[in-house]
């Protein structure tokens, strides 16, 4: 059965190497669309909005703790972009809380689980994304990350 809420999680693969730990800890009410990134600096403001456009009810960006980014400033850049998009969401009348940002230590499964539960509780309070595409009850859930915008797994410094 389709879960009521969709969450796109953009995460640095130093926190968890793949999506399995996220999917296995998904709250009952939340379907997770994981987007792995070789460094959180790869997250672009546009990806976050596109995820909401594609039907995510919330978007979360997970980065390494400050001072622990292997590309030095990747997580700081990601934080600034997230803050900008949060204020843009407020400006257009969408609740900026739909976009969350967390610093997580590598392999910290306990925090992952509690962050996911926090988001599930938030979604239960604020409801579905009112700007998502129309959803029919029988329809297959669409992509929460639109085609072409999935960050590629680079083997080089993302800059």
């Amino acid at each position, binding site marked *: 059965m389709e879960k009521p809420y969709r969450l796109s999680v953009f995460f640095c693969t130093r926190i968890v190497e793949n999506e399995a730990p996220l999917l296995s800890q998904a709250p009952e009410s939340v379907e997770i669309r994981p987007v792995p990134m070789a460094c959180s600096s790869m997250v*672009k*403001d*546009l990806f976050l*909005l*596109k995820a*909401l*456009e594609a039907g995510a009810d919330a978007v979360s960006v997970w980065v390494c703790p400050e001072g622990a980014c292997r590309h030095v400033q990747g997580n700081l850049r990601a934080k600034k972009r997230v803050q900008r998009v949060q204020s*843009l*969401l407020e*400006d*257009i*009348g*969408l609740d900026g809380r739909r976009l969350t940002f967390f610093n997580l230590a590598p392999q910290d499964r306990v925090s992952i689980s509690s962050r996911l539960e926090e988001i599930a509780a938030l979604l239960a309070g604020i409801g579905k994304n*009112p*700007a*998502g*595409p129309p959803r029919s009850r029988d329809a297959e859930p669409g992509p929460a990350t639109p085609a072409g915008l999935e960050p590629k797994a680079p083997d080089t410094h993302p800059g």
Partner: protein
Amino acid sequence: MIVGEQKPVQEILQMVAPHRKFLILGCGTCVKTCFAGGEDEVALLASALRLASRKDGRPVEIEELTVERQCEDAFIAEAAEAVSRNEAVLSLACGAGVQAVARRFPRSPVLPGVNTTFLGVLEHQGLFTEECAGCGDCQLAVFGGVCPFSRCAKKLLNGPCGGSQEGKCEVDPDTECAWHLIIERLSALGRLDQLRAYVPPKNWQTSLSGGPRKLIRKDHVI
């Protein structure tokens, strides 16, 4: 380059409200460099406007296009088909670009999405500062390469004013005192003596104050 910033999204939403299908036209030169109107900003704004309109239950159709320069007709022409498919154009170029597009397409409303702010330089990533007022009679040789017309809050030509503190302007302590910079620079060049000469009041006739200006290069006009 010309520096500008995107208008607040609420103002843009009000401007585009009468239109259900419009083109966001970016410019790939100055405004791209200052993150106001290049391809990325066009895409981000389009996405934000689509979300806003869907939330309000009035979905809009937005086409996105960025041309190399909106102040040159040869590049504007590339947008002709896209313009003809849409009810209006939201231009993310500077004011010159907006007007050039409007001139080319007289039957399309052309709306400005950017507040054109100044002629400046990129000091470091994300910081742009005003450095030229386009006065039409450049006097940088007199001032050691630092422009007091655009960088001194009081536009003093025989400064400093006496309020400068530790190299900062008394009007705005976040701004460097232009006269401090002028003196430092002329000292480094060994040309401080230059400042003994009185600089007479500027004739602003060559600036915008003398009316709209035109530049004609006869060798290029056929």
